[in-house]
């Protein structure tokens, strides 16, 4: 089950990457105003965001894939 999931994600990532050569980026730089807004960040709170993950990890069996990086407009 886990191996199938990973193979599926691998194939998905290859599809996405292979798209680099054929498909053009469909959101132009001048269309990214909304994405550049700070409210569109996947991690807005820095140290405070890290702390809440720590709170959950100490009280729950699950761990990992808390994310954090990314979001925004890709303008840089």
């Amino acid at each position, binding site marked *: 089950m886990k191996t199938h999931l990973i193979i599926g994600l691998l194939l998905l990532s290859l599809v*996405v*990457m292979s798209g680099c050569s054929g498909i053009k980026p469909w959101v132009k730089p001048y269309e990214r105003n909304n994405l550049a807004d700070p409210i569109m960040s996947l991690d807005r709170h820095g140290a405070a965001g890290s702390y809440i993950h720590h709170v959950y990890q100490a009280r*729950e069996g*699950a761990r990992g894939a808390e994310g954090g990086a990314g979001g925004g407009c890709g303008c840089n």
Partner: protein
Amino acid sequence: MVREVVVVVTNLLAINATNSTPFFKAFFVLLITVNSILMSAVAGTLPVDSVDILYHRFDGGGMEIDGPFILVRKSIGTQVSVNGHYYIDSVSAASIDVVANASEYTEERTEVSAGVDFLHEKTMISTGYTNSEENDFVANSVFLSIGQDFFGDLTKLTMGYARGWDEVGKIESDFSEDVDRQIYKLGVSQVLTKNALMGLDIETISDEGYLNNPYRSYRYFDPADSTKFLTSVEVYPETRTSTAVAVRGLYYLPYRASIKGEYRYFSDSWGIDAHTYEVLYVHPFGRQWTLEGRVRHYSQSSADFYSDIFTHEGANDFLARDKELSTLTGMTYGGGVTYEIGQGVIPHVNKLKLTLLVDYLKYEYDDFRDVTAGGGLLPAGTEPLYEFDAWVTRASITFEY
């Protein structure tokens, strides 16, 4: 480029079949290769120079934990940014685990880290070291991650590897055991439309060593009187491997506000399956004020070797009664407010951000009973199921300069 990737996949699958290389490791090697192939079409930027000072407090379930968390980032030239953090947990513990097994205690945990972000052309490489210490526990870890943007900067790929070494002790004894840990991370974030983006994160963690909490014990029916129970030291497996996969979506609403949805699936070799759902709504008012609200739901099944009460001593090879390994449900309701002061108000500060976040947590256990209920006089195994709630407060001030 696609042909190169396929060749790498074929080779890795062949390696996997012949040498029994764990597939995830092979996958990780593949992604490093893909990463190097894509080097020519990347983008990135160094983190903003900042000082982030957080006061955190957890209050509930008999635990009071608070302290500061300070994170500093400073760039050196245009390619390097260094960072460090200092974090303290001051703990006053009288939780059900402590009351049932030992005396109330206070202790302090201190964590320090140092890290470097290195921007080469448009690829970000980050590395760092963290040390965490308390009177009966020491943890050291190092990490390395590589991130880059490509596909017109609409896609961001991040990969990371971390290694940790823990020393588990026990106060007022010579007890000392080790734990080794390896962490593999993969993250992709993708701009979908001019108003939407999504993220996918995968993380596999493997531990090897002494994974028990040395203070906790399991309980079993007293053979002389089945209305009573006796306790003995827990026995855990010496290995654990877990995988978590999370999908996140963020959408800019027709008015200036955003909504974020998140789902995480978790599974490990101890038999725990967990599901996490979270929704966050963020609504700015003008340029300075932002309000947010969130709801989180968490549920998990118990570990294969967990039981609230065992039939007899040594009933299985592995025996645990940690409530974190039981079947449980957790809810979080949170809210927050942020106030920002922009450039020009304070000399040398580009942005000053004040944030207050308050969360209410409630945990309910399906097979972990409160042995302290009824003065500890209820027949063994008939005690009410345990539950607790807690308040988590985070207040921070962030300077960007």
